[in-house]
């Protein structure tokens, strides 16, 4: 039987041609050891790709499928909205994964996963075979919960900017174009959503910009939750002390529709709100490809996994990472956590493909910094340990915590954190 041919090209910008990826049939993997396909080059997927190569001593072939030309970080992207950082500051190329670690980088999008045949189909038409699949698809939005957002043009006018990139730039432009005295309204969905403290940090960053550039303007936070979902006392202190005349926080405001043309938000129980700039963070769920593959077994939204291996509970040999998973108790959906998932999964995948037992006691951490101004930062940190009886990750009692107050030292650590996690994930 003819083995699948796999074009293994090294070097920057390695591209697999659509032809010749899969010729003949059957045996996944091809020559040269087992083959792992990683879908999604964010914090989870890029980390997993790198560490499978490292920990298999380059013995396992890894193909990373990612449509974006570069990695653009969500963490720190609120500072681009605030004006103290640029897109270049939060952008990292994928070159080092290719050059240093021999990852095959395929700039394409996965359109279909076949768990039985163990293949993925790419938008460009090619098919890739895998022995194990690592899926790090991030989140996609539940637009059908906001009917007005399905109207033509609505999503170009009312931005989420909850995936760093073009929408980060576009929202910054909207803020710059807004006249002084305008209102920026930010709506926050019910938890769980990507990056719990992110919206509150964003409010601080926009307020910081307004305080300098257009001080008569307002930031209106419309939160579907009963209260601030992360670092609550620290954010409220920052709003009261730094942005008293700019930020207004309204909890229990669940957006049920958006009239983009009229710049108006409609709520479940509250009066309509009209604002100059609307920034709607919609309800979200695991990335579409995971949902379409039937992996989103929790509420049709999130993918349940075995926390020892990150293997899906719905499909053998498919591992799911990052924001797409049904999180364990006390575990946030964060880039840092996805990086930790990536390494836990990489170790397990290497073990499983080389006939070893996966690690029995994962222990890892989350560290999350939020900028309440251009310089001052508050953190939340936690340590998560596998609980064999409950078969999940649990916060270690007595560990973790938050900053005692916003401070400049942690502002420097936050930027050092970014440099380090970008390198750990991508270099």
């Amino acid at each position: 039987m003819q083995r699948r041919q796999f074009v293994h090209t090294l070097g920057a910008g390695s591209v697999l041609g659509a032809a010749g990826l899969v010729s003949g049939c059957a045996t996944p993997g091809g020559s040269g050891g087992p083959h792992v396909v990683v879908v999604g080059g964010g914090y989870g997927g890029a980390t997993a790709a790198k560490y499978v190569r490292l920990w298999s001593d380059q013995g396992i072939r890894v193909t990373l499928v990612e449509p974006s030309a570069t990695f653009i970080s969500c963490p720190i992207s609120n500072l681009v909205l605030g004006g103290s950082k640029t897109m270049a500051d939060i952008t990292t190329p994928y070159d080092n994964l290719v050059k240093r670690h021999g990852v095959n980088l395929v700039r394409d999008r996965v359109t279909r996963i076949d768990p039985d045949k163990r293949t993925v189909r790419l938008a460009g038409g090619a098919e890739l075979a895998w022995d194990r699949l690592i899926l790090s698809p991030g989140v996609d939005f539940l637009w059908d919960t906001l009917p007005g957002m399905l109207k033509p043009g609505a999503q170009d006018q009312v931005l989420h900017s909850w995936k760093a990139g073009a929408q980060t730039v576009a929202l910054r432009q909207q803020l710059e174009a807004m006249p002084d005295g305008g209102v920026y309204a930010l709506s926050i969905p019910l938890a769980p959503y990507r990056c719990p403290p992110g919206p509150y940090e964003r409010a601080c960053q926009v307020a910081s910009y307004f305080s300098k550039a257009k001080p008569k303007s307002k930031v209106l936070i419309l939160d579907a939750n009963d209260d601030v979902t992360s670092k609550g006392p620290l954010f409220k202190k920052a709003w009261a002390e730094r942005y008293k005349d700019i930020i207004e926080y309204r909890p229990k405001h669940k957006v049920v529709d958006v009239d983009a043309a009229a710049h108006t938000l409609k709520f479940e129980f509250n009066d309509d709100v009209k604002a100059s700039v609307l920034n709607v963070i919609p309800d979200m769920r695991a990335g579409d490809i995971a949902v379409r593959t039937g992996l989103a077994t929790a509420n049709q939204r999130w993918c349940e996994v075995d926390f020892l291996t990150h293997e899906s509970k719905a499909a053998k040999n498919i591992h799911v990472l990052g924001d797409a998973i049904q999180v364990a108790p006390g575990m946030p959906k964060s880039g840092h956590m996805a990086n930790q998932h990536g390494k836990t999964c990489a170790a397990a995948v290497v073990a499983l493909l080389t006939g070893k037992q996966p690690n029995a006691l994962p222990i890892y951490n989350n560290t999350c910094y939020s900028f309440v101004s251009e310089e001052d930062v508050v953190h939340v940190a936690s340590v998560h340990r596998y609980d064999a009886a409950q078969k999940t990750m649990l916060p270690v009692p007595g560990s973790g915590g938050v900053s005692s107050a916003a401070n400049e030292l942690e502002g420097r650590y936050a930027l050092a954190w970014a440099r380090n996690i970008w390198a750990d994930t991508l270099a």
Partner: protein
Amino acid sequence: MRRHKMLVAGALAGWCGWASAQAVDPLQLRSWAAACAACHGTAGVAQSGMESLAGANKDEMFKKLMDFKTGRKPATLMHQLSKGYSDEQLQALAGYFSALKK
């Protein structure tokens, strides 16, 4: 990486006392240490602004981690993270990082 594994195995074997009683699987230890790499760099070699852990003195690092854990040494967040590990786990991590190349 192969060399690292050997060094780690050597370091583990070299610990008399608790190491023999509570042998930490070297691959398990490698994963615990990799969790620290998000801030302290892959294989403990950090980017600017954060402390590298690779090649540090084992006893000094263990003491520092224990001082964070007990509150003797002030920190922004290491006092909170170190409390997530047993003393033995911190000792194993100090041994692991000390065996890595600077």
